[in-house]
């Protein structure tokens, strides 16, 4: 096989997600009353980027064959924290941003420590830590409120040069600063290896513990970036249980659509980003076609159900029935 065919095989999931997103976005904008304008793109990207950050966070953990059911709650917690701290003069705001991101990193690190060094199942551990994070969010904001540095918020949710949505630029920057170095580092490789076959990775002397820990911690950081952006969009902090849960759920949907294997070791955050954008666009298609918004939860649920069921096609390739049982 030629090099480009290897590359194609490796990136198949990402390219598929990209394709789905493009098709959906074309349908969306061509039926939108305002058409393909900078405003429509800006609104769509602002909504999509929120989910994209949370989906990236979920990807990092899913790659290690784990799952983080607390990402939505870290997202909510950092949103509430940002509505207290990211305010005031430039220095104060900068300090606030650092504090919010640090909190996210800490939350992720706690998850990682419990799962890896405490040897608990990720699913139960992160449900429990999610409850704790939500409790803290509720302490910070018993009622929706707070405010944010509006200059910074408007700059980051507006447009660059009047055309490109600033949120997309930030997303790109985060990919370049967080995802690309991580996936190419020893730790990133270790995270992939641990997800692919933990036993083999362990036997080969791969630093699986450090790799997994880094993945969990960075997931917390990415969820915090998402929470920060939510504050920039809404100007408030709100400890809403339903919204946190919805983001956790949608992040899994986005990861699946983005071609990341839930069994670990396969996929990339870039795919998950396109998965997130595609998922958001599909959800918003209902508005373009004038459906009752009441149908949106059902519609999103059905998309999720179909997306996860598509994975079942792999069963047709199974030759030996014993391979059904992992």
């Amino acid at each position: 096989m030629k090099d480009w065919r290897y590359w194609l095989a490796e990136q198949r999931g990402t390219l598929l997600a990209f394709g789905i997103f493009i098709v959906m976005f074309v349908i969306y904008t061509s039926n939108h009353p305002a058409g393909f304008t900078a405003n429509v793109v800006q609104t769509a990207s602002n909504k999509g980027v929120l989910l994209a950050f949370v989906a990236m966070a979920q990807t990092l953990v899913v790659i290690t064959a784990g799952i983080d059911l607390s990402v939505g709650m870290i997202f909510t917690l950092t949103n509430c924290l940002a509505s207290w701290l990211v305010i005031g003069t430039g220095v104060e705001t900068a300090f606030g941003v650092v504090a919010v991101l640090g909190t996210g990193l800490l939350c992720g690190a706690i998850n990682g420590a419990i799962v890896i060094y405490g040897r608990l199942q990720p699913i139960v551990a992160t449900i429990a830590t999610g409850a704790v994070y939500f409790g803290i969010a509720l302490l910070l904001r018993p009622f929706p409120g707070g405010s944010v540095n509006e200059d910074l918020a408007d700059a980051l949710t507006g447009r660059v040069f009047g055309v490109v949505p600033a949120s997309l630029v930030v997303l790109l920057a985060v990919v370049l600063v967080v995802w690309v170095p991580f996936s190419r580092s020893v730790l990133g490789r270790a995270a992939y290896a641990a997800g692919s076959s933990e036993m083999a990775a362990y036997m080969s002397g791969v630093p699986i513990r450090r790799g997994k820990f880094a993945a969990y911690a960075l997931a917390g950081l990415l969820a915090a970036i998402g929470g920060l952006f939510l504050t920039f969009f809404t100007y408030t902090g709100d400890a809403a249980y339903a919204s946190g849960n919805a983001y956790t759920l949608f992040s899994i949907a986005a990861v699946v659509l983005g071609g990341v294997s839930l069994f670990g070791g396969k996929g990339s955050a870039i795919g998950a980003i396109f998965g997130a954008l595609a998922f958001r666009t599909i959800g918003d298609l209902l508005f373009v076609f004038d459906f009752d918004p009441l149908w949106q939860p059902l519609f999103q649920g059905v998309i999720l159900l179909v997306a996860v069921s598509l994975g079942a096609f792999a069963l047709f390739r199974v030759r030996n029935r014993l391979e059904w049982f992992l």
Partner: protein
Amino acid sequence: MSETTLGGIAGRMPRFIRRADPAVLTAFACIVLLLFLGSLYSRSFLSPEYLLQQLKVASFLGVIATGMMLVILLGQIDLSVPWSVAVGAMMACAAAAYGPLGVALAIPFGIFCGVLIGIVNGFGVAYLRIPSMIITLATNAVAQGLMVVYTGGFSPQDSATVAMRYVATGFTIPGVPNAVVIWALIGAAMVFVLTRTSFGRCVYGIGNRERAAYLSGIDTRRVVMIAFAVSGGLSAFGGVLLAGYASKAAQSMGDAYLLPSIAAVVLGGTSILGGRGSYLGTVAGVILITLLQSILSVMQMPEAGRQIIYGVVIVAMLLLYGRAPASR
């Protein structure tokens, strides 16, 4: 700490303690500790009325946790509990609006809807081999979507039938609430199924190693599917009971039952990886969680503090005895 000293101490204890699971003993010890702490705080904590009231509240969680335990024994998990509970409650109340026949069939119809959700879960897990965590999250979202469309986004106006209220709050045996009787009956049935039937042995076998169970001639996929259907049905039945208790159904009434039901099963010593655990432990876990909730609310702890304590207690107890073996 060596094996021999442990064995020496255990050897002098009565047989039933020697045979018991340490996790179950820990859970019961924690219950006693909580009762002790509670009685320090308030005298009425040890009164029979209060304890009976706690048992009644625990029975709703107990019914739901029974289904969850069956699924966890398989090494799977059911995250569709929140909306299975709500669907059971809402559909039972909705059926009541359709004349006398609807009133008569309200409870079975609610349970039936839960079983349907469970069958979708079971089909996805057993036949499509989708990870249970994912498919149950998806059916949970679909069930939520269906209910939002059905109710128009508001809490439904239908109210619970007389039978539902009687089942949840009435007294058939003087002094013992019906809900507790029902939990006892369901629990007894579960113990019988798990320990005395081939289905129960299959559940444990699959939880240990599905490959081996399959090679021993068990139709593992059917067993998994049935287990999920039972779990869905029991969640919905829990919802029916809750609707009878509150005399109406509400949106998101099941949200408060996902973490407690998993926690109750896991704190009771059932391995989250499947194949190991006893119903007695789940009973202990359910009572433990209910008492914890009750103490926190008696102390007028705000919701935020309750969530935090809850999560911390679960992680701490799991770290005590729920750890996976080290990879070596």
